[in-house]
């Protein structure tokens, strides 16, 4: 067959699999037709007893103890480790797929090699995901048998489906990885890419299934107030918070995967001996950081959407989340997110040094730095200020006339949009660093971009200040959406204009990969560690807002550990879990390293 036809056919194959991606999403619902029939049956037998039991009302002795283990901490850490690994393992194939596709398009072998190296790292992580996942399940079975029994009675179909999908996931991953070098060439590469897509599809469905279980516990659906299940799995899955969590996790996974790979590349860079190696890992780190930032930018929006939905689901849960003791958690979160943004920007700035052309832009960085820090300080200002008695007296009360208004959402939305725009601007400078535009409308293009940014920033401020402080709350919430849209529009339009300006541009001097200070690599570590810790923190609050419920308002937690842990206690657990995770990740990286090493053992084997 002619290669051209072949590639067409394989393209069609790819589209077909894309379609398949959406099929499994329909499956767990067992479609609405059967649901309707079942309803009719239920109506027929009004008095008939439901085959499902109400949620049990447990007492302390229903929670087994085992060798003095604290069941909650055991499950907590196991679940957190599982989540970290799973996030990594789900995210890496997403951008490996993208990088592989870029490599196919540009026919640049470096991309293919890098994609292969990424997937190699995720392979060992995959088995660790399964191990800690098993540990978590065992922990739940040992320490929370009744909870598991109740959840299983509702989700049994999806749980079996989940287990079966794991076979599909493993098969795809193994073929994708072990067949990498085998499936090269015009047609075979398409097949390989298709397997990559399938791998992502299966992985995403797995995540959606697992998400439905935990969101059911937060916003139960398909059960009555006593916890009697109506028999429709789809109702229970498609609960109020399912999609907000799905979106948030999907985006966060990508950012997280990028940051871990970035740390891997940074470590390899620091321990590299040859300039080639240094160049390779510098380039790899840059790409990983790019992925992490790309995921990081939309993340605040996804988070805002999630919180808005939590409020819409229950004001009580919303205020527990944002106004009660957890309010201070968001101050910690603000510190961490600030750290992420600052270190990502710092890494980009350091990268200016890779090319001679970057020097032109050095002088602008201080303005970016100023805007970033200023926006961050607003983002960080708490709603409830910690005041000493003296300050309390001086202020005449706990309200600060000028700092108080910075404590509420409109100010923070404005700040985060500015931070995102500044980060994008850092990236834009980096992108331009080594290029000289050759088109004759450079000036006009630049003016357009400056106008675009100025208008966007003015608009964000206007929306934040006017709608945030001078109109009522409905607009206050609603104003965040045009703000986000402004930011996204600027990013898209500016990218388009910029890529047109720099079409056919010439280089100032060759890009010198590997010429970055070691400090920049530590920014990558900071990114990865902060991200990991932050995910742990947010996991605690997501679970913590359920308070003393296994399933909110339906299934009460009567174990001795039903209390909500204080922030200090929780962060200590998170820190320990982070260290455990790091140790395992180092093991994974080390395996990836030794797998490529050969020891000459001449004289050991008989010749």
């Amino acid at each position: 067959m002619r290669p051209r036809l072949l590639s067409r056919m394989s393209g069609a194959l790819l589209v077909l699999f894309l379609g398949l991606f959406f099929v499994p999403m329909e499956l767990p619902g067992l479609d609405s037709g059967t649901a309707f029939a079942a309803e009719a049956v239920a109506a027929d037998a009004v008095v008939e007893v439901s085959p499902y039991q109400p949620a049990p009302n447990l007492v302390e002795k229903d929670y087994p103890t085992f060798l003095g283990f604290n069941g909650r901490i055991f499950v907590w850490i196991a679940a957190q480790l599982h989540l970290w690994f799973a996030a990594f393992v789900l995210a890496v194939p997403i951008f490996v797929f993208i990088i592989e596709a870029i490599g196919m398009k540009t026919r640049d072998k470096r991309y293919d090699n890098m994609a292969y190296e990424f997937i190699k790292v995720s392979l060992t992580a995959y088995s660790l995901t399964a191990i800690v996942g098993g540990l978590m399940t065992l922990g739940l079975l040992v320490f929370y048998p009744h909870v598991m029994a109740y959840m299983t009675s509702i989700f049994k179909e999806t749980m079996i489906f989940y287990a079966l999908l794991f076979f599909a996931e493993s098969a795809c991953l193994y073929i994708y990885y072990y067949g990498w070098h085998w499936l090269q060439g015009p047609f075979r590469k398409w097949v390989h890419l298709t397997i990559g897509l399938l791998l992502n599809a299966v992985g995403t469905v797995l995540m959606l299934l697992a998400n439905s279980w935990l969101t059911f516990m937060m916003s139960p659906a398909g059960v009555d107030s006593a916890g009697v299940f109506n028999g429709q799995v789809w109702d229970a899955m498609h609960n109020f918070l399912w999609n907000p969590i799905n979106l948030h996790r999907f985006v966060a996974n990508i950012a997280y995967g990028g940051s871990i790979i970035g740390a891997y590349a940074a470590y390899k860079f620091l321990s590299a001996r040859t300039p080639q190696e240094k160049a390779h890992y510098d380039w790899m780190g840059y790409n990983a950081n790019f992925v992490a930032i790309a995921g990081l930018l939309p993340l605040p929006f996804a988070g805002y959407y999630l919180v808005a939905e939590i409020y819409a689901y229950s004001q009580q849960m919303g205020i527990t989340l944002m106004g009660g003791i957890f309010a201070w958690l968001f101050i910690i979160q603000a510190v961490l997110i600030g750290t992420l943004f600052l270190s990502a920007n710092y890494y980009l700035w350091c990268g200016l040094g890779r090319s001679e052309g970057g020097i032109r832009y050095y002088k602008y960085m201080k303005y970016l730095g100023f805007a970033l820090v200023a926006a961050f300080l607003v983002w960080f200002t708490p709603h409830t200020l910690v005041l000493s008695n003296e300050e309390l007296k001086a202020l005449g009360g706990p309200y600060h006339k000028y700092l108080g208004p910075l404590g509420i959402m409109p100010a923070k939305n404005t700040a985060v949009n500015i931070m995102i725009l500044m980060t994008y601007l850092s990236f834009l400078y980096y992108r331009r660093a080594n290029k000289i535009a050759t088109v004759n409308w450079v000036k006009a293009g630049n003016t357009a971009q400056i106008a675009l940014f100025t208008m966007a920033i003015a608009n964000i401020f206007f929306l934040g200040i006017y709608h945030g402080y001078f109109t009522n709350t409905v607009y206050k919430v609603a104003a965040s959406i045009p703000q986000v849209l402004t930011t996204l529009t600027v990013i898209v339009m500016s990218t388009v204009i910029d890529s047109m300006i720099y079409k056919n541009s010439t280089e100032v001097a060759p890009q010198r990969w590997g010429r970055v200070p070691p400090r920049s690599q530590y920014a990558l570590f900071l990114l990865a560690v902060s991200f990991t810790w932050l995910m742990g923190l947010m996991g605690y609050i997501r679970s913590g807002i359920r308070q003393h419920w296994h399933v909110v308002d339906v299934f009460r937690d009567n174990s001795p550990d039903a209390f909500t842990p204080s922030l200090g206690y929780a962060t200590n657990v998170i820190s320990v879990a982070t260290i455990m995770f790091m140790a395992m990740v180092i093991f994974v990286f080390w395996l990836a390293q030794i797998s490529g090493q050969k020891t000459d053992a001449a004289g050991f084997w008989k010749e």
Partner: protein
Amino acid sequence: MKIPRLLQAILVLAGVYGGFVLVFDVILEQVIPSSLLNMYMFFVVAGTYMVFTFNEESTEEIVAPIKALVEDPSKKMMRNVVFLVVPLFFGWFTFQQMKPSFEAPLELRTIHPAPPSAVKVYGKRYNLLTLENPFRKFEKEDPEKFAELVRQGGAVYIKNCQYCHGDKLDGKGPYAQGLNPVPLNFQDIGTIAQLQEAYLFWRITTGGPGLPKEATPWLSAMPVWENFLSEDEVWKVILFLYDYTGYSPRSWEHE
């Protein structure tokens, strides 16, 4: 004359710090809380570090004097002084931080504690998640009646609430000075403008004693208005609070 980079960085930090103090404490006359200023400065330091060290040239300029201080034999005197002064400074700082003082410990109240899902007042149970102001609908349906209700709410307010919360609803009533925590300032964007009416109903009817533990210490002098006002009066006074301040109660469009 070009200012050395290291000095520039130090001047930036000192300038920002002084700026905060000057703007808030002197010009605006609203002191900046020291806990907040410390955190602000931490991130200003981080930002300054970033700006001054992202490229090699600048980093070397910054590091050079420090390196020279440690390594240059001609700077022995200076080195000895710095090595003595810096630890002493930190010692003094730590001592200041740790030494016992007579200041009362910090009290931290959560101003808007999470409400319970239901509250029992007037012998009935109210589901706070769905509870709405029965009079709110007249705002559109019958503006005249609404205005009358607001007026009645205002009368209730003046008779009962203004002694503490003030006749301008700014938390500065005649008795406000004697209270800690101080009465809520309804004109502040961070108070009723952020809350649903059901929340206000809960806070008014159950008062200070009805606060959950996270809002402790229970020093709030807010009376349990359930005992003094009728249900309708509470709802009317809520109408008045929003009407007078010009805020709208928080509402969520459902899907």
